[in-house]
């Protein structure tokens, strides 16, 4: 009898523990920008699991993940840096690290979090575990002048790379020795870099320029070669349209030997070859914001700036033709693919909805309610360079 009782207890305890176990590889967080909260979702059966509140001003917020895919680091506009435990569904720590920030990155080894700030302009680097300040790098470029920083990414070799919007510079910060960051500065890279990205292999850093045509490119394998300008002739002689929203370069899409990127102030997606030469431009519905590659690179999904932001277009990367135009609703702000690309999630801000679509049939298979959703971030970003 006693044995039976013990066995029952053991069995009961085991089943309890089993029920509580869960992986995090199919989880994600969605920014609910206006009310300062994030929604925890899972993309195996496409449901929302929890809401985590108290994150401040989340307009233009973004998230990176720890390499164990348990913690999300949320970068808020108001300078807030919040560490979320997605298993416990709660905030672990939250600090106000500046007055106004724009994004962040996690280091190659996962131990450092860098945040890109507008005010005061510069980058701050924190211990990913404790959020204690490790390094403060003010972006000082002229006597006393501090530049807003943009396009902050991580790169192999424990590097952080970012651009100075006001100064027109690219800085590379080597954090191999955390007590002495080594900063390499590249000046006169072009006027008003507005965003930057690193290619998925972590080799090339590219800054988009708002103030002039072309892009600034830095080969991180060969810093000694300096910054080169690519796509210099793009846009020459053309009247640019007013830009109601800055494009994002994060989703910059590479497909085989082609790269697609949003043109600034044109209703076009640009196609470059491997030599950074423009080979084509694709006419699209509006000014592209995100040009995002499905994980298999066969399709590119594009959203657009105000006032044409009710539309999504899908480009076939083989033919470079638009194969589908969708009208999900007012203000489609962001998209995120499931890790292997069978589904795409998109946030429809003005209709407070997140739609999940099948990327083969383009059918909406699920709609989730979310309050003015913007960015959608799945945990598999944890293992991608530059995200």
């Amino acid at each position, binding site marked *: 009898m006693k044995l039976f009782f013990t066995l029952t207890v053991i069995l009961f305890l085991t089943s309890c523990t089993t029920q509580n176990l869960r992986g995090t590889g199919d989880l994600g967080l969605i920014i609910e920008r206006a009310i300062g909260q994030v929604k925890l979702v899972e993309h195996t059966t496409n449901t929302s699991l929890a809401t985590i509140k108290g994150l401040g001003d989340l307009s*233009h917020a973004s998230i990176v993940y720890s390499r164990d895919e348990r913690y999300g680091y949320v970068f808020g506009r108001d300078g807030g840096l919040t560490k979320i435990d997605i298993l416990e569904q709660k905030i672990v720590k939250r600090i106000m690290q500046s007055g106004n920030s724009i994004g962040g990155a996690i280091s190659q080894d996962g131990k450092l979090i860098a945040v890109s700030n507008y005010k005061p302009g510069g980058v701050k680097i924190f211990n990913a575990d404790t959020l204690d300040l490790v390094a403060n790098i003010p972006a000082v470029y002229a006597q006393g002048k501090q530049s807003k920083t943009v396009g902050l990414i991580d790169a192999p070799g424990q590097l952080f790379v970012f651009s100075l919007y006001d100064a027109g510079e690219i800085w590379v910060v080597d954090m191999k020795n955390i007590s002495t960051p080594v900063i390499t500065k590249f000046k006169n890279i072009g006027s008003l870099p507005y965003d930057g990205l690193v290619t998925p292999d972590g080799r090339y850093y590219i800054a988009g320029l708002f103030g002039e045509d072309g892009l600034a490119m830095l080969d991180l394998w060969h810093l000694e070669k300096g910054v080169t300008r690519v796509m210099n002739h793009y846009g020459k002689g053309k009247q640019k349209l*007013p830009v109601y929203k800055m494009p994002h370069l994060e989703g910059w899409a590479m497909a085989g030997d082609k790269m697609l990127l949003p043109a600034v102030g044109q209703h076009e997606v640009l196609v470059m070859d491997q030599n950074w030469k423009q080979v084509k431009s694709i006419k699209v519905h509006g000014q592209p914001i995100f040009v995002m590659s499905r994980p298999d690179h066969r399709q590119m999904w594009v959203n657009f700036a105000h*006032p044409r932001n009710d539309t999504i277009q899908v480009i076939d990367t083989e033919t470079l033709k638009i194969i589908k135009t969708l009208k999900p609703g007012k203000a489609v702000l962001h998209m995120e693919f499931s890790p292997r690309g069978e589904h795409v999630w998109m946030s429809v801000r003005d209709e407070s909805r997140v739609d999940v679509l099948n990327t083969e049939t383009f059918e909406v298979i699920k709609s989730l309610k979310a309050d003015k959703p913007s960015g959608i971030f799945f945990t598999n970003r944890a293992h991608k360079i530059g995200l």
Partner: protein
Amino acid sequence: MQTLSLVILVFLSLSVFADRLTDRQQELRYLIKHDCGSCHGMTLKGGLGPSLQSLALKNKPDELLFITIKEGRPGTPMPPWKSLLTNDDINIIIKILRKGIN
């Protein structure tokens, strides 16, 4: 009787007009928060673009704000909004900004 119905009619159309203005004002408030906000921050305390909070605009005359919204600021990312907004819209936006949106 006819006069009365005319008065009522005028009154009704006036109130409809007033409602419409309110709707438009609400739309413009939304536009300020979310679309201006994409560069100036949702609370308008500044981002890529400068702060648009009422205190920050205190010393900027209406005419300057009007021309900036209408024509944009060449050499900066501030676009001209004239193709999307009427002069009336712009004046309403200036009023909302002066009052503050929060």
